[in-house]
């Protein structure tokens, strides 16, 4: 187990380094966008003086270098700063009351996104693994082909298109689920679940193909090995061969692909959240990019990057744990 611990520590350190690089890239990229917060918020009122005044108030007239390290210094201490929009609103009124920090702004949105990801995972992971196993069992059958065609076409369609198709069939023609996912704090769990169902189904359609195809391929790959042949010769039923003998050895690649797709559920929800008006982090991200609200954009990107790194790390560890050869290296 010491070995595993060492790997975790190594990967965490590398992950931190990656985050640092990501933060530099994001900071530079956002600053390279034409226009800035002052221009975005003022619209028609963006005269030279008012732009300069807002830039001065927010410290946007400082050099890129200074701003980056000021921000980084705050983040290291757990302070993600104040969103420009909120700081500017306070500035309008000349008081400091009611300024919300980036962390306060993101926390409820992030919780909502996690909820949606959890609902989707609960549906998508069992469905796609089951479909993958069945497809491997009845490979090249009509069932196998139909599943492949369906999942591949759903992953190939743009998310907003899937979303509108589901809205048409499940909200307009047959009003089963609401097309508006405006969940809020204090909503009953059942209602929250009902409202999140359509976005969760769209995300399920998007991630199923990847997981299902990987499960199918990993199992079929193993079916050619001698020990499976042995099991068959013993007269075990095909289902049992797959579930008892092939699946445990196929776990590593399956876990990897599941982890990757879970990360996608957190970072790839932007379009789905906008279409369904789901108050998650993706919607906040879009609004903040439009406003060039750099502190919020930075924090969102860091969360996305951290989600990827952590889930990849989890995937690696899980595949080590699921493989005795890696667990007990010679």
């Amino acid at each position, binding site marked *: 187990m010491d070995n595993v611990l060492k790997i975790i520590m190594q990967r965490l350190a590398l992950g931190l380094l990656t985050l640092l690089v990501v933060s530099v890239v994001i900071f530079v990229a956002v600053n390279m966008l034409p226009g800035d917060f002052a221009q975005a918020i003022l619209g028609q009122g963006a005269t030279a003086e008012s732009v300069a005044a807002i830039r001065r108030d927010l410290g946007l007239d400082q050099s890129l270098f200074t701003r980056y390290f000021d921000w980084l210094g705050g983040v290291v201490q757990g302070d993600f700063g104040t969103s420009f929009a*909120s700081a500017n609103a306070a500035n309008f009124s*000349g008081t400091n009351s009611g300024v919300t920090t980036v962390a306060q*702004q993101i926390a409820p949105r992030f919780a909502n996104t996690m909820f949606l990801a959890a609902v989707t995972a609960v549906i998508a992971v069992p469905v796609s693994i089951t479909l993958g196993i069945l497809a491997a069992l009845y490979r090249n059958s009509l069932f196998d082909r139909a599943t492949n065609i369906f999942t591949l076409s759903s992953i190939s369609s743009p998310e907003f298109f899937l979303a509108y198709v589901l809205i048409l069939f499940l909200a*307009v023609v047959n009003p089963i689920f*609401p097309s*508006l996912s405006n969940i809020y704090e204090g909503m009953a769990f059942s209602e929250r679940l009902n409202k999140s169902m359509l976005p969760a189904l769209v995300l399920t359609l998007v991630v199923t193909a990847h997981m299902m195809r990987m499960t199918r391929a990993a199992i079929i790959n193993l079916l050619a090995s001698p020990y499976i042949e042995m099991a068959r010769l013993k007269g075990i039923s095909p289902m049992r061969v797959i579930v008892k003998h092939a699946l445990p050895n196929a776990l590593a690649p399956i876990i990897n692909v599941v982890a990757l797709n879970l990360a996608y559920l957190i970072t790839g929800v932007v379009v789905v959240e906008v*279409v369904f008006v789901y108050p998650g982090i993706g919607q906040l991200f879009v609004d903040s990019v439009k406003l060039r609200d750099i502190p919020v954009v930075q924090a969102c990107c860091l969360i996305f990057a951290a989600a990827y790194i952590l889930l990849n790390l989890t995937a690696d560890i899980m595949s080590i744990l699921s493989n005795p050869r890696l667990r007990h290296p010679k």
Partner: protein
Amino acid sequence: MNGISRRGLLKTGAAAGVLGLTGMPLRAQTRGGKLTVGLNGANTSDNWDGRTHADMFMIGAAMGAVFDCLTENGADGSLKGELAESWEASPDAKVWTFNLRQGVTFHNGKSFGADDVIESLQLHVAEGSKSGAQPIVSAITEMKKITEHQVQFTLASGNADFPYLMSDYHLLIYPAGQIDEAIANGIGTGLYAVAAFDPGVRFVGKRVENHYKGDSAGFFDEIEYIAINDNTARMNALLTGQVDAINRIDFKSEALLKANPAVRIQEVTGNQHYTFPMHTDTAPFNDVNVRQALKYGLNRQEMVDKILLGHGQVGNDSPIGPANQYYNADMEQLAYDPDKAKFHLQQAGLDSLTVDLSASNAAFEGAVDAAQLFQASAAASGININVVQEPADGYWSNVWLKKPFCACYWSGRATEDWMFSSAYEAGVPWNDTKWDNARFQELLLTARAELDSDKRREQYGEMQQILSTEGGALVPMFANYVQAVNNRIASPDTIGNLWQMDNCRMAERWSVA
């Protein structure tokens, strides 16, 4: 009650903009039920501070439901008292006395009086405040509490429109001494008290019992505004019945809404207009003949048909729209006439003219297409318009007011003086045509302090005529406010056209059918 002050100052109906609809609501409105509305223009930084309000969501929630102003604009364009019962002006329109309504209480139980008015207005001129209503309040040199329910304002110079300006959506009245708390929690005197507010997500209001507006307004028990910034999502929400009404219909999908029998479309022409301002101090636009050549080279009707898909009205190169009191409807309509354009070009001593027109869809949706239509229609008269497509980002700081000929939009203003002094008074920062005309300037100052309504109508009429024939702004079209409502909800026959959604007052004026 109606607060029409002496000499019939405000006795001018301006319902002209309401398309084909006149008269007041006839059917009885019933109390009860819930109104759910999907609105755009919401932000995570939204709050109850009127100084920061600029978009539909918060204007509708604050001015339209939770808070009141001193005066309000009726759906027919008349001015009514809200927290003020009546008002009087000195003959030079410099000193205004407002009689406040008695027996009004805030949602927290505090009773309303003169101190609340004075303290709330002072917020807009507080040190460091960048309120949108700062110019209105800074024109007041003295605010005096005469009795508990009477306030006197002294202005730096006479302004006959002062009561109109008090209806501005920034000028919300907060409880004196508790303003920080009122801004944090949304405590006003409006028909609905805040039940839930999640910035950028939703607002829920509950009807206040025993409200001073009585049974004549505020018919719902509960209202819910849901922030839906995405156009398609807003339409879906209406079609699937999750909201009862939405603002800002996408013209391209309007036909789909029309095909749905459960939904009706409300459309009014207000003051929102799209313009092509020319710098009248820069060659070649400093020559009035060049400006007139361009005026006749512009096919306004084609732009209304193709850019607004018919949802608008042709403009006449004046920024005063049908929602204004002194809208001059008698002016001769400028029309596309290549021969006249050619004639004016010759008058300017030119055979042909080549100008750059800067445009971007940041100016208004379809601005680049509009510029290209202009290019095509002007070409017939030997005018070569070179359309320069500018980046949307930074358009308002790099192009508008800087390039001598560009595309622009104005949401319009409630009064003529307000509009003219924002963009057409000599020397003001947003004068995007560098307009400086002696007669126009003289009329502007006289009309501002004139209390006689007939005289003002004449003066403002002449000013609109000057702009139409000589002015530097081409105003090809006024864009309609288009919104959709489920038939479950009844609305009065006359819909306000000053702002979208019945002047943002749907919570007050609509009811369950």
